[in-house]
C-alpha cells in the first residue's frame, strides 16, 4: 500500500517537543479516519511511524496528528513546515467504541501524550452530548508546561456539562491546580461506576494503575478500554513486529477492552 501525498496545512507547537500537524490531501484522500485509529505517517527520505488521529471527526478529509519528537522519524515529522509534503497510509486499527457508552457516564483518562488519541472521541461525545450521562476528563501530565491541547482542555473545563480535572507530577508556585498522579483523581471523580464506560490512554504503567483505580471504584472490567501504542512496523498485520500475545496491535488494536489486554500487559519484556 503506497503512501498518499498530503501537504502540511498548519503546524502548531503544543509543548517543547510535541507538535500538531494538520494535513490536507494533495489529490486523493485516505478513507475518513475515526477517533482511536491511526495512520502511518511517512517523512520522505527518513521513514514512517504510526501516529494516532487527534482530530475532531467532523473535520472530514483534513487529518490532525500530534506527535512527540522521540527519534528520527518523529523528529523529521515535527520539523516539517507548512507546505511540505508527507506521505499517509491508512487509516489503520479500530476506533474507540464510543457507542457502547451511549446512555452512560463517560470517563476519559489521559496521561501525557495520551490526550491526543482521545481528543477525537471527546469531540464526538460532546457533539452528541445529550446521548450520554456525565462526561468526565481526567488528564495528567509531567508539568504544567507539558500539557497538550491546553485551549481545548480550558474550553471543556468551562462547560457546565463536563467535569475536567487536570493534574501534574510537579509544579512551581504559580500552578494553582492539582499536583500528583492522574490515578489519584479517580476516587473522587463524579461518575457512577456501575453505569459508566472509561477510555484510557497513556504510558502503559499509568494505564495499569488507572485501570486498577477504576476497577476499585466499581467499574466493571468490560466497561474499560485502553489504546496500546507499542512500536509497530508494517501497519497491516504482515510483519509481526507489534505482536502481543495472540494479537497484532496494528490489525486487532490499538483499542482493546481491558480484560482482553491485561494478561499481556503484566508479562515482562514482551
Amino acid at each position, binding site marked *: 500500500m503506497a503512501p498518499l501525498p498530503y501537504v502540511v496545512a498548519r503546524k502548531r507547537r503544543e509543548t517543547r517537543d510535541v507538535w500538531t500537524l494538520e494535513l490536507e490531501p494533495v489529490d486523493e484522500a485516505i478513507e475518513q479516519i475515526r477517533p482511536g485509529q491511526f495512520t502511518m505517517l511517512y517523512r520522505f527520505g527518513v521513514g514512517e511511524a504510526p501516529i494516532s488521529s487527534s482530530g475532531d471527526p467532523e473535520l472530514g478529509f483534513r487529518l490532525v496528528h500530534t506527535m512527540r519528537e522521540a527519534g528520527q522519524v518523529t523528529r523529521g515529522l515535527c520539523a516539517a513546515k507548512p507546505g511540505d509534503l508527507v506521505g499517509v497510509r491508512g487509516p489503520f486499527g479500530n476506533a474507540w467504541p464510543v457507542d457502547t457508552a451511549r446512555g452512560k457516564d463517560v470517563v476519559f483518562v489521559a*496521561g501525557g501524550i495520551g490526550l491526543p488519541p482521545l481528543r477525537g472521541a471527546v469531540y464526538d461525545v460532546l457533539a452528541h452530548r445529550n446521548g450520554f450521562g456525565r462526561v468526565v476528563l481526567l488528564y*495528567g501530565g509531567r508539568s504544567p508546561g507539558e500539557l497538550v491541547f491546553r485551549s481545548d482542555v480550558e474550553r471543556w473545563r468551562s462547560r457546565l456539562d463536563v467535569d475536567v480535572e487536570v493534574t501534574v507530577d510537579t509544579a512551581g508556585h504559580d500552578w494553582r491546580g492539582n*499536583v500528583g498522579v492522574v490515578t489519584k483523581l479517580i476516587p473522587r471523580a463524579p461518575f457512577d461506576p456501575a453505569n459508566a464506560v472509561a477510555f484510557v490512554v497513556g504510558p502503559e504503567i499509568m494505564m495499569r494503575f488507572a485501570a486498577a483505580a477504576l476497577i476499585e471504584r466499581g467499574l466493571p472490567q468490560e466497561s474499560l478500554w485502553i489504546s496500546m501504542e507499542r512500536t509497530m512496523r508494517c501497519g497491516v498485520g504482515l510483519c509481526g513486529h507489534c505482536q502481543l500475545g495472540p494479537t497484532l496491535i496494528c490489525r486487532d488494536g490499538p483499542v482493546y477492552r481491558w480484560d482482553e489486554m491485561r494478561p499481556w500487559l503484566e508479562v515482562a519484556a514482551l
Partner: protein
Amino acid sequence: MRTLDAVITDSPVFEGLTQEQLELIGGCASNVGFEAGERLFREGDRADAFFLVRHGLVSLEAYVPNRGPITVETIGPGEIVGWSWLVPPYMWHFTGRAVDDVRAVQFDGACLRRKCDDDPVLGYELLTRFALVLVDRLQATRLQLMDVYGDNVG
C-alpha cells in the same frame, strides 16, 4: 451546613468505626478555614495536628534551593493531610498551604495520641487507617518518581 460529627462519620477514612470511637475522635476535632495562600503548617515545625479537607485544595510544598518552593502534591476534598502527628519526632516534613479557600476539620494530634494510649483498640484502628493513607501516598509517589511521561511515548 452539616455538623462536625456528620462530616467525620461520612469520611471514608473513619468508615466502619463504632459510634463510641467516632465520638472520641470528634472530641479532638474542630472546624477550620484558610484563605487562598495561607499556610496550614510549616516544614520543620512540630506536627500536632492533621486535617480532613472538606473544600478546596491544600498543597504540600518543599523548598528547593535555587528553585524556590515546589509543590510535591495537592490534597483535595475527602482526603487527609498529615501523618507526622502519628510518629516521632512529630515534625512536619512539608509545608502545607491553601491553594484556594480551604475548609477542613482539624484534629488535635496530641489529644488523639492520648486517647489512643488509653484505648489501644482505637489506636489500632487509627493506625490501620493511616497505614492505608500512607500506602496510597507511597504508591502515588513511586509512580511520580518513575516519571512515566518522560521518555515514554503514547
